C-alpha cells in the first residue's frame, strides 16, 4: 500500500474488489483491523438512514411513516437506547423519484456513513438502489414495499423485506371471500404496476386461473376511476379486491357509492387503513360507506391492543400528536424491529453481526405472527389476519387468518407477539 487509505477510500476499494475474491482478502487483511468500529457506530450513538417520499404526489400517503419511526427512536433513546447507544435516524426525501433515491442513498452511505439503510420506501425508488447497497455490503433492512424482489437471499444477501408480499395479500383476501361464498363473482382493481400484477397473481392462487371475472387497472396520475368501476359494475362483480393505495381505495369506494354500486370490498394492507380512509372520505359518511369493508394486516393495529396503545402514547408525546393511523403503527413497528435486531447483534455491532442475527431466526418482532426471517428466506411475514370494519371500528376477525406459502393458502392461528418492557427491546 502506497498511502494510508482514508476510511472513504477503503470502502471504495472494497467495492471495486468485490468481484475478485483474492483482492477482497487482500483489502480485508490490509485494512480490516479488529478494533475498528463499523460505519455509523460511534461511542454513544449509531446512525442509520432511509429514503422516503416527503414531497411530491406519493408524499400524501407515506410521509407519516418515517416521522413515526423517528418518534419511536426518540422514545427509545429517552429510555436508554440500545446497549447505551442512541439511534440517529437520517430521513432523506426522494420524492418517490428513483434518480433522487440514487443520490440520497449514496449520500447516506458515502457521506453520512450510515450503519444500515432502514425501510427505504417504494418499489421503483428502492429497486434502483438494490444493486448499489448490496455491492457496498450495506444492510438494507425492512424495505417498505410488498414486492417479491426483496426476498432474494442468493442475489441480494443484504436486503430484507418487511411488508407481507402482494401475492400473499391477494391470495388471503380472495380465500377469505371464497370461504364465505364459493360462488362469488370476484374482480380485481389494481395499480398498473407490479403491485397490481402480483396481487392479481395471488388472487388467482385462491380462485384458480380463470376465477377473476374482471381485472381493471388505474394509474396514479389519473385520479378518476369512474370508467373502471363502471366496467366492474357492468361485469356484475360482487367482490372487488383492491390492489390500491389508500387514496385510491377511498376514491374507488366513494365513486362506486356515488354510482349506486355497493359491492363487497377487500383491500391490501397498503390501502386498507381505516383511519386514513375516514380522513379521505370524510368522518360523516365513512362509517356507513366502509361498513363491512375487509382488509388484512400482519401488524397488531387493532383498537385496544397493547402495542397500539403504547404507540398511541408515543405518538402523542414524540410525534406532535400526528393523526394516529396505520402509517404510525407501521413506522413504529419498523423501528421496534430494528431495535430488536440491533440489541441481539451485541454490544459492538457490526454489519455482519446484524445480518447474522436476522438470518438466525432469533427475531420475533411485534406482529400478529413471529417474524419468518432465515438464511434462505428474507421475507418478514407469510401470514396475515383478516380485519373487518363494523360500526366504525376496524378489528381483526376471530378465526380468519391465512398463511400463503408454496402456492397454497392455508388457515393458521395468529400468535400475537406480546408487549414486553414497554416496547423497549431487552435481553
Amino acid at each position, binding site marked *: 500500500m502506497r498511502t494510508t487509505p482514508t476510511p472513504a477510500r477503503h470502502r471504495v476499494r472494497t467495492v471495486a474488489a468485490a468481484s475478485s475474491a483474492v483482492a477482497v482478502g487482500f483489502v480485508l487483511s490490509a485494512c480490516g483491523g479488529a478494533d475498528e468500529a463499523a460505519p455509523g457506530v460511534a461511542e454513544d450513538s449509531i446512525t442509520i438512514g432511509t429514503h422516503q417520499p416527503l414531497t411530491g404526489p406519493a408524499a400524501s400517503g407515506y410521509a407519516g411513516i418515517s416521522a413515526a419511526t423517528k418518534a419511536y427512536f426518540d422514545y427509545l433513546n429517552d429510555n436508554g437506547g440500545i446497549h447505551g447507544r442512541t439511534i440517529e435516524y437520517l430521513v432523506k426525501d426522494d420524492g418517490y423519484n428513483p434518480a433522487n433515491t440514487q443520490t440520497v442513498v449514496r449520500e447516506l452511505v458515502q457521506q453520512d456513513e450510515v450503519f444500515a439503510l432502514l425501510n427505504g420506501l417504494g418499489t421503483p425508488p428502492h429497486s434502483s438502489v438494490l444493486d448499489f447497497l448490496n455491492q457496498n455490503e450495506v444492510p438494507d433492512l425492512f424495505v417498505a414495499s410488498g414486492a417479491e424482489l426483496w426476498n432474494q437471499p442468493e442475489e441480494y444477501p443484504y436486503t430484507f423485506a418487511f411488508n407481507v408480499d402482494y401475492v400473499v395479500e391477494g391470495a388471503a383476501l380472495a380465500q377469505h371471500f371464497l370461504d364465505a361464498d364459493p360462488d362469488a363473482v370476484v374482480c380485481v382493481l389494481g395499480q398498473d404496476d407490479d403491485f397490481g400484477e402480483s396481487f392479481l397473481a395471488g388472487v388467482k392462487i385462491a380462485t384458480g386461473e380463470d376465477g377473476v371475472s374482471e381485472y381493471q387497472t388505474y394509474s396514479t396520475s389519473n*385520479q378518476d376511476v369512474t370508467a373502471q368501476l363502471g366496467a366492474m359494475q357492468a361485469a356484475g362483480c360482487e367482490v372487488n379486491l383492491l390492489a390500491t393505495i389508500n387514496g385510491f381505495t377511498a376514491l374507488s369506494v366513494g365513486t362506486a357509492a*356515488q354510482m349506486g354500486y355497493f359491492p363487497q370490498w377487500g383491500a391490501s394492507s397498503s390501502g386498507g387503513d381505516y383511519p386514513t380512509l375516514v380522513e379521505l372520505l370524510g368522518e360523516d359518511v365513512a362509517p356507513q360507506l366502509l361498513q363491512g369493508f375487509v382488509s388484512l394486516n400482519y401488524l397488531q393495529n387493532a383498537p385496544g391492543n397493547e402495542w397500539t396503545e403504547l404507540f398511541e402514547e408515543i405518538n402523542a408525546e414524540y410525534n406532535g400528536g400526528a393523526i394516529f393511523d396505520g402509517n404510525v403503527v407501521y413506522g413504529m413497528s419498523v423501528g421496534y424491529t430494528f431495535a430488536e435486531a440491533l440489541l441481539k447483534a451485541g454490544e459492538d455491532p457490526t454489519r455482519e453481526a446484524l445480518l447474522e442475527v436476522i438470518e438466525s431466526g432469533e427475531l420475533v418482532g411485534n406482529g400478529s405472527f413471529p417474524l419468518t426471517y432465515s438464511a434462505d428466506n428474507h421475507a418478514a411475514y407469510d401470514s396475515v389476519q383478516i380485519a373487518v370494519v363494523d360500526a366504525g371500528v376496524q378489528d381483526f376477525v376471530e378465526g380468519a387468518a391465512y398463511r400463503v406459502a408454496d402456492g397454497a393458502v392455508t388457515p393458521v392461528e395468529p400468535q400475537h407477539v406480546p408487549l414486553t418492557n414497554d416496547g423497549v427491546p431487552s435481553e
Partner: protein
Amino acid sequence: MDRLAFLLATGLARGLVIALFALSLVIIWRAARIVNFAQAAMATVAVYVAYAVVTWTGSYWLALVAAVVTGMLVGFAVERWLIRRVPRDNPLPGMIVAIGLVMILHSVIGILFGPRHVPMRAPFSREPLYVGDVAVLSPYDLFVLLLALGIVVALAVLFNRTTLGLQLRAAATAPEVSRLLGIRVPRMVTIGWMLSSAVAAVAVLLLIPTELGLNAHSADILFVHAFTVAVLGGLDSPVGAIVGGVAVGVLITLVTGFLGAGMAPIAVLALLTLVLLVRPGGIFAVKEARAA
C-alpha cells in the same frame, strides 16, 4: 352498449371541466399572448381559500364565490407584480417566469399545508340518473354541465355584447391602434388575467370532488390535459377549447374503460401529434394565429 353510453356520459362531464380550464388558457392567450403555465397552481391557491370558506361557513355557494374572487385577486397580483416586468419581445420569458411561479406556489403550498390530500365534497349527489336502464349523468355532472355552459355564455356575452368586451378584444388584437383610440391597454390585459384566473379557479373547484382531494398538485394533470386541448383547438379559439375539451375528456374515459388506464396518456399524445401534424396551429386556427 350500456357501457359505451355510461363512458360517454362520464367522459362528457370530465371533458367539460377540462374545457373550462382550457377556456381560461385561451382567454389569457388572447389577452396577453402568453401561455400561463402557472394557471393550475394559481387556481389551486384560490381553491385553498374556497376550502377554508367551506370549512368555516359550511356553504358551498360562498366557497364558489370565494374561489372566483380569490382567482381574480391572484390573477391581478400575478399580472401586475410579476408578468408586467417580464420582457415581452418574444413569448419565451413569459413562459419561463410562469414555470418559475408554478414551482414557487407548489412549494409554498407544500410547506404551509403539508402533502396530505384534503377531501372536498360535491354539493350534489354523484349517483347517476338512469335513462331507461342506462346510467348517465349524475346531478353533480349536471351541475358541472350547467355551470360550465353558464360561464361560456356569460363570457360570450361579455366579449361580444359589451363595451368592455369590445375593448378587451381590441386591446388584444391591435394594442397600438387601441391605445390611439383611448383604450387603456394595460388595464385590459390585467382584466384578461383576472377573468382567466377566476374561470380556472372554478374549473379546479369543480374538479376536486371527483378526485382524491385538495393538494398542491391536484390540478397538475388537469393543466396538462387543458393545455393539450388548447393547443389542439388552437390557442386563439374559445370554440376549439370547448370542443377539444369534451373530445379529450371522452377520449381519456373511453381509452381507460376499454384499453386500460395506462394507455390514456399515449392516446392523448397520439391525438395531439396527429392534429398538430395536419394543422400546426390547431383545428380551429385562423391563418393569423399561426404567426403567434
